[in-house]
């Protein structure tokens, strides 16, 4: 069978196709079809010719086979130091072979490459830091995912995920109407406690345009209301766009570069339409990666920068605390051992290591913050990055991958983990579920709301009766 009905080389572009794919519970038929899916070798060779240039070819060729990358990889460490988990081996036996054979590979090879690309690498980029040549196998696996995606060899959930971006411009089929309704609902709910609070939609020339992760309107609307409360208390002149509010990109995990471009351009067009001074994104790692770090390149921006300064939530928050826009009640500072999860996407890959620690210096009583080891740009992936959290068929591998983070957290002795990243937050929640080590985990927003000083004039007036 050249191509399946569900598993094929064509991206999902219509709501109907998306629903058909979703109806195939767990991707049963999808993966059955994948067993028969032919490799379009000519197309693969053409892709290599057009996109595999000197950087990646040199990386593949120059690798000295020294094995220094082994210990840098948390998946190698948590899989009993299985030599098959050595990053150099993983990439040489997948992308390396595809390049060597110029695309002349078969179905079985591609399915193996898919398994390696999505269950043996989270694209955390740590190996690149430990390779004398700076061979970044995370970058190469992301590239490999793109090749696999274009041939239809992609986990079911991620085919759906990138289809969501194509159809809804948001993951989890959240429409613009759902979004604006959620904002209105959240504003209304919060107004009892916060008189005057608003979630201004499509306000032009605001100081801040706020963007989110679609799962906030879908599953955690209180996150939006918390953001609104903090902007309100900080006296920020802010807005959300009615369209272009979704900052994440499951297409980045899927390797669907076309959808990545569509998605980020949609966000940038909101910036251009509303002309804010800057944009601020929620506490999410890959959303930041997709919109701020890689996004400018997908959108073809030669300076490599978004159209306006685009801050990660931690940057905005650090600034608000630094300048006193939000004040912390010293009596409410955290007085228990607490540790911090460094998200690969904006710590290793965007340098915000001191920003998150600055925030902690305002909210944690001195002596109670314990660093994980290693930390900052040397920290390990949470275990669920790069789409790993969301792929059902690789759940056992993902659960095993959580062990490194579990042990890092246990070594700190902390019972509270601050995780200002949706993916890390999920992974840490799952590791507690899986291993029951008795920890709590939190984003920054709810912690700050609990411990900030609310100015008198923002408090609800006592009703006189």
């Amino acid at each position, binding site marked *: 069978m050249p191509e399946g009905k569900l598993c094929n080389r064509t991206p999902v572009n219509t709501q109907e196709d998306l629903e058909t794919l979703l109806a195939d519970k767990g991707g049963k038929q999808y993966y059955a079809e994948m067993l028969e899916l032919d490799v379009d070798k000519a197309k693969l060779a053409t892709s290599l010719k057009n996109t595999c240039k000197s950087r990646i070819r040199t990386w593949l060729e120059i690798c000295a086979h020294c*094995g220094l990358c082994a210990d840098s990889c948390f998946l190698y460490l948590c899989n009993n130091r299985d030599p098959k988990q050595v990053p150099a081996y993983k990439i040489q036996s997948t992308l390396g072979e595809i390049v060597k054979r110029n695309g002349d590979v078969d179905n079985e090879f591609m399915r193996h490459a898919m398994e390696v690309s999505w269950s043996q690498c989270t694209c955390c980029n740590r190996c690149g830091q430990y390779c004398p040549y700076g061979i970044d196998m995370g970058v190469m696996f992301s590239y490999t995912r793109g090749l696999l995606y274009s041939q239809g060899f992609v986990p079911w959930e991620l085919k759906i995920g990138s289809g969501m971006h194509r159809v809804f411009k948001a993951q989890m089929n959240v429409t613009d109407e759902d979004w604006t309704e959620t904002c209105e609902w959240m504003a209304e709910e919060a107004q009892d406690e916060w008189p005057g609070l608003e979630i201004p939609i499509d306000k032009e020339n605001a100081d801040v345009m706020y963007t989110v992760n679609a799962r906030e309107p879908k599953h955690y609307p209180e996150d939006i209301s918390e953001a609104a409360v903090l902007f309100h208390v900080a006296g920020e002149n802010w807005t959300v766009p009615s369209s272009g509010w979704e900052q994440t990109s499951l297409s980045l995990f899927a390797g669907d570069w076309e959808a990545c471009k569509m998605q980020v351009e949609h966000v940038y067009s909101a910036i251009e339409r509303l002309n804010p001074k800057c944009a601020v994104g929620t506490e999410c790692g890959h959303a930041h990666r997709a919109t701020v770090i890689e996004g400018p390149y997908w959108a073809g921006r030669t300076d490599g920068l978004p159209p306006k300064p685009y801050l990660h939530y931690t940057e905005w928050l650090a600034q608000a605390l630094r300048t006193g826009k939000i004040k912390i009640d010293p009596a409410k500072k955290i007085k228990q051992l607490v540790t911090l999860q460094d998200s690969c996407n904006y710590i290793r890959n965007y340098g915000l290591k001191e920003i998150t620690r600055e925030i902690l210096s305002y909210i944690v009583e001195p002596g109670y913050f314990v660093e994980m080891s290693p930390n900052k740009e040397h920290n390990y992936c949470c275990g669920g990055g790069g789409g790993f959290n969301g792929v059902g068929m690789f759940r056992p591998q993902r659960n095993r991958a959580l062990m490194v983070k579990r042990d890092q957290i246990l070594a700190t002795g902390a019972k509270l983990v601050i995780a200002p990243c949706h993916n890390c937050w999920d992974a840490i929640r799952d590791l507690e579920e899986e291993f029951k080590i008795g920890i709590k985990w939190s984003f920054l927003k709810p912690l700050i709301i609990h411990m900030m000083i609310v100015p008198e004039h923002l408090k609800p007036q006592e009703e006189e009766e």
Partner: protein
Amino acid sequence: MYALITGPLLWLTFAVFFGGLAWRVYTYIKGLDWKLDRVAYATQREAGIRGALRSIAAWIVPFGSQGWRVKPIFTILFFCFHIGLVVVPIFLAGHAVIFKMRFGIGWPTIPMALADALTIIMIGAGVGILIRRVALPEVRIVTSLYDYLLLVITVAPFVTGFMAVHQIGADYEFWLLAHVLTGEIMLLAVPFTKLFHVVGFFLSRGQLGMDYGIKRGGLKGSPMAW
């Protein structure tokens, strides 16, 4: 025979060595693509160069990077190997003499005892690297015959040179010829094998440094702690 391999063949070797490496540098840089690599090489040049230099510096200095610090034994083997490999051929008095005879150009040299010591250390480190390749499962799995061949090609001129200089074994002539030939083989192999890391290290290391210097934090004023 001696006249041939130290005359035309030597010239050919140098031409291939330098020409090949120049070609490597040219094609690498030409193949960089800001959009595919997602690094704004041209428009953020200053941050890029700063990042590249930091990245190279961290790795060219022994224990200069976290990667070196967590692997002290390998780091020592690595630097012992490379220091001998680079310093001895370039600054050996015996080589400088030839240079002086042929071109009349003086060249700084190192004392013979130091050259001997560096050579022995270098060969010893080569043996250590070989043992490591066989002994460690995580290295063995990525090792192929090609890796052993390259190690032999690289170490051979040093072994033969040492034998010739110290006239170990009766046949000085043999060792000298073997030394010149193995040296030429090594130089010829450089542009065509992964030994091109003579320049490739700087290119690849520099590229990732630019990536971090431009896109991954450098522009945020938060340089990478390699």
